[in-house]
């Protein structure tokens, strides 16, 4: 039984005076204990809104949330704000993309860390301070005693992100949601932070929901990957399966358009044409069809379903998937 199982999550913005716009359109996935699950996609695919919905951080007005998000028997989407506050920070925690704007600029780091310890673990005074120093030390912040007295602007970007991770893991949460945790960081600092997350998952068995646009990060970290496009999962597979045989034209196109460090020079890139603005409503067909090289009239007849055209567990939402000319050797009954 997975720790978190999200079923047909739908988030729609807008209401009476605005044309409603659906950011997340029926997304389903599960995250097990000690598992790293990736939500990948470009800007506007609904990955961040998914995480905000799970954490109960969407504004109360002007947003309609549908579906279920079952976290160890409780539906996160229908919890009362008070129960959610109790769970958030203790059982679920989140790391945001921009560490500077998610820390309070006028409160010292120490106070921001001990706030969580006081709220959820009842620690106060010296024990809380000690625990906070230990948390900072654990995420590799040198001289934690001094850093606790400093303000966010006095820390470097990498150190701020570490401080946020320290706060997120303060109560040993069972589920950690990381929304683009390394996008604002330099590549050597990114490597440090990813290693830290990897260790957390290995040692504590934390479930990690990793939200990113970087397929390289996904390849090294995630067990299971969901590729989102225009609010829907278009491909779901284990990472080896996905990177070895990207089957949805969008996932295939994404992998073809990334310059790779290990590719020989001069190998051309194969970009996806158009931009995210060229999409059609899922209700009318496949939202990716206007940018797709494989598209046929069949793509415009209603929402395609998730199917398993290649292998079990590798689900693809496409009527014309990218399949190898020779299908993989299937077990043909003699």
């Amino acid at each position: 039984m997975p720790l978190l199982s999200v079923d047909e999550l739908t988030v729609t913005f807008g209401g009476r005076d605005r044309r409603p716009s659906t950011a997340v359109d029926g997304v389903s996935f599960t995250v097990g204990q000690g598992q790293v699950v990736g939500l990948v996609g470009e800007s506007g695919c609904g990955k961040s809104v998914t995480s905000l919905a799970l954490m109960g951080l969407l504004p109360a007005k002007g947003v309609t949330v549908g579906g279920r998000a079952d976290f160890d028997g409780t539906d996160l989407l229908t919890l009362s704000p008070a129960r959610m506050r109790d769970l958030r920070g203790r059982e679920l925690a989140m790391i945001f993309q921009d560490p500077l704007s998610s820390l309070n600029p006028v409160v010292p780091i120490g106070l921001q860390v001990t706030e969580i310890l006081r709220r959820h673990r009842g620690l106060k005074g010296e024990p809380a301070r000690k625990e906070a120093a230990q948390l900072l030390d654990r995420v590799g912040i040198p001289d934690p005693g001094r850093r606790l007295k400093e303000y966010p602007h006095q820390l470097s970007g990498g150190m701020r992100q570490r401080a946020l991770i320290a706060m997120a893991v303060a109560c040993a949460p069972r589920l950690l949601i990381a929304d683009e945790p390394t996008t604002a960081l330099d590549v050597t600092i990114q490597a440090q932070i990813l290693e830290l997350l990897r260790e957390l998952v290995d040692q504590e068995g934390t479930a990690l929901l990793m939200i990113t646009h970087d397929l390289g990060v996904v390849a090294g970290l995630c067990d299971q990957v969901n590729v989102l496009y225009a609010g829907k999962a278009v491909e779901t597979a284990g990472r080896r399966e996905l990177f070895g045989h990207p089957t949805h034209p969008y996932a295939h196109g994404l992998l073809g358009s990334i310059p790779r460090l290990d590719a020989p020079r001069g190998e051309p890139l194969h970009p996806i044409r158009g931009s995210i603005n060229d999409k059609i409503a899922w209700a009318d067909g496949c939202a990716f069809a206007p940018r797709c090289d494989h598209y046929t009239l069949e793509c415009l007849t209603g929402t395609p379903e998730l199917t398993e055209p290649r292998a079990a567990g590798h689900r693809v939402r496409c009527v014309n998937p990218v399949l190898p000319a020779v299908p993989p050797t299937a077990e043909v009954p003699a």
Partner: protein
Amino acid sequence: MSLLELDGLKVHFPIRKGILFDRVVGHVYAVDGVSLKVEAGQTYGLVGESGCGKTTLGRAVLRLTGITSGEVVFDGTDLAGLDDEAMRRFRRRLQMVFQDPLGSLNPRQNIESILAEGMAAHGIGADREERREKIKEILARVGLPADALNRYPHEFSGGQRQRIGIARALVLEPDVIICDEPVSALDVSIQAQVINLLEELQESLGLTYLVIAHDLAVVRHISDVIGVMYLGSLVEEAPSDALYAAPRHPYTKALMSAVPVPDPDLEDRRERILLHGDLPSPANPPAGCRFHTRCPWVQDTLCATDRPELTDTGDGHRVACHWTAGIEAGTLVRTRATGIEAVTETAAVAEEPEAADAGPAPDLVSGPEPPAPVPGVPAPAAEADPKLPVPGVLGGAPAPGPAGAPGAPPPAGPGEAAEGGHGRTTGGAGQPAADRG
């Protein structure tokens, strides 16, 4: 003769203090002595992390930022010595494409007006009609519809805006285009479109590019030669393929190993070299080799005292490291951990580079001993190498701890931090990560 040659380029920004009397209390050494050559028709890629001075360097070439000293020789003329009017005329031949396509286009000008402005300033095209024809031709070339002329920047998507930025550079028929992070603001699928466009244009128009970017994979894809910058200077330069096949400077090695590759098998297999701590402040760079405070191979001699010069090490590589040969041969042992310990072990105390002159330098270890090699000429180290390292360093190598060379510099006292960011750990002594109960 190369088309563009930088020789000892320095850009220092003064740090001022005082209300009534303007005093200069220090400098930010943004670019601190960079020499490189960009050949006609080729692409030179400059990579480095934020704060390494790569953007300042690009702006200094166009003299959008004042040059402190050094030469920028373009087609035989030293741009650093030109007066403003002569420089203005030269800018037709050296154009720039900026990172933020929306921020670099005036929202109140339509596309025709944006593109025609530069043409008018440089006297290209006799009248409006002629300019319009030329602009239409360029727009078609960068893949924009002709009706873009009368539209405004906000009506375009990010990728299209970047095409407008490229068109703005192209209408002046430049020889060199400096691309400062040309694709980093764009989504992955759009990045590839713009990269392909830049390559096509280079091929058909014979352009020369200086591409400045933090994304090593992008730079590797489009560059013929790559220069790696760290804290204001080049640490390594090599042809693109050679650099990827065999990075020689410790920083390049770490940088390469940190770039995620979209290939799960490769990701699981390859070794990651994690660095300690953060980039030191360019206002207060460490003495000696700028990288020695984070270098996994830091040695007790030279590193903290002598600044290495960029030296030819064969195969087109130029490397600024005293110990290249020893690291290549494997005779030098890492003195700092590069695994997860580099991240979780905060060891003893943060060391501050302010104390550089007083000495985080390991003066207790090898102070009285005059270093054998001539400073600035590390090449002889090649033969002498196995003997050179202080025995203590080599001796401690296979010890049980992952690093913890006994010769590692002792922790200096806790300095007063001017700014977070240059704390680092010393040694890598076998202190286990503090686990929470």
